[in-house]
């Protein structure tokens, strides 16, 4: 069981718990504003963009090549950007704070 904390662009804080699946699925299932997951989680739409809190970046690890490429020209992307359909829920994530990108 991992606790994942989303902070939306309206600064709403949503704490969720999960054991499996992707972080995008968890967010969509709970209606986290700003995470749409339009492509169903195959890294094609970039509607699941989050900024990992810098102090928690070790929990998620860096973006893969395809995530980086998808976000390359996104003005809101930074070094802590991830497409959260590519983050699998695991114990390791416990306590992670994710800021939903605009």
């Amino acid at each position, binding site marked *: 069981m991992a606790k994942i904390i989303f902070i939306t662009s309206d600064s709403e804080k949503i704490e969720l718990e999960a054991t499996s699946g992707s972080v995008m699925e968890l967010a*969509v*299932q*709970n*209606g986290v504003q700003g995470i*749409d997951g*339009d*492509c*169903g989680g*195959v*890294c*094609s*739409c970039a509607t699941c963009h989050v900024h990992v809190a810098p102090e928690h970046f070790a929990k998620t690890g860096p973006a893969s090549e*395809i995530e980086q*490429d*998808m976000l*390359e*020209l996104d003005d809101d992307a930074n070094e802590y950007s991830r497409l959260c359909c590519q983050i699998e829920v695991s114990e390791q994530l416990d306590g992670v704070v994710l800021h939903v990108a605009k």
Partner: protein
Amino acid sequence: MSENQTCVVVGASHAGVNFAFALRKAGWQGSIKLFDADPSLPYHRPPLSKAYLTSSDAIDKNLLKAAETYQKDDIELNLGVKVGRIERTAQVLHLENGEQVAFDKLVIATGARPFIPPIEGLDSASNLYPLRTAQDVENIRQAFAHSAQKRVVIIGGGYIGLETAASLKKLGGEVTVLEREQRILARVTAPYMSDYFQRLHADNGVAVATSKNVVRIETRDGENSVQCDDGTVYPADIIIVGVGIRVNTELAVQAGIEIDNGIKVNAQAQTSDENIYAIGDCTYHYNPHYQRFIRLESVQNAVDQAKVAAASICGQEVEYDTLPWFWSDQYDVKLQMVGLSQGYTDILVRDENEPKKFSVWYFKGDELLAVDAVNNAKAYVVATKFIKSGEQIDKAKLVDASVEFKPANLLSRVQVC
């Protein structure tokens, strides 16, 4: 203002569901009622021929939204209910179960259904299915699990047919794709891409036969033989029909709404009746970038039109103006497409000197129309930027893989003023 009003949506899939949530977000205070004939909670369609088909997941692993989120946003979801007729002047919907539902605003998001071609013997074929709904996948999975030889014939070499071929091959099927045209994906890509995908399938052990016009299916003891007009015959335990779609325009036609290759809508997704909007696969709409009316079958179009219709109904000034994009996943190949290639005069291929990674750039003179990127998300985003901005590309640099893939590096120095 919208407090006592009712917005009714026919069709609860990518377009209808995204619309309902967008409408609430845009400030609609009245009731929102979604109707769909499909009894399942609304789900993602693209995975049906891809990862969902090869998984053993139930459909609840593939939902557009969780059940509770509809309640949270006070969206009434009526599933397994078919809408039979729109009475336009009275602003009432007639459901097939005899009930009536009044509306102030109506959104038609009826999408499309698979086209079933008039092939002799098709109705009595064994284990023959289209692929558009969760039930279709369930039927295919069941038939596949119970088939000893798992010989699959797929009629139609479009994206859905090819994805289904890759998925059923992965599950251990003996798969053959029969395409009527001289090449697969003939309607949507350049010959270069058709050749690439033909080889990709061959390399993965799927036979793709072109110029195969299926004219008859004979079925004996549950075993089908699929016959083409050139005399060739393919035995099949399971047949998948993937030869395109028919738009669900019947409700609109009967209501006297303007139709032209789909339900005709303006830049606000409004039909010829000001209280009735249409969104998604069922619409024939204007694309400002390409300056022509088009019909699209894509999640992008369904979602973007949904947002425009919602904003417009809530009184915001919006116009539909987005670039079409699409994707397809087959084996280890991820294809991402942006733009519309119709009308191209030449194509350039940029090879990245890495296996299975390249992009095909469609130009009309110097204007970039569209790009197909294979395992190359960077090409896809760079192309999106260039198509949007209209900036000219230095073609020599584009095809030179040693030039790093950054917009600034590809800009043509001779800019037309």
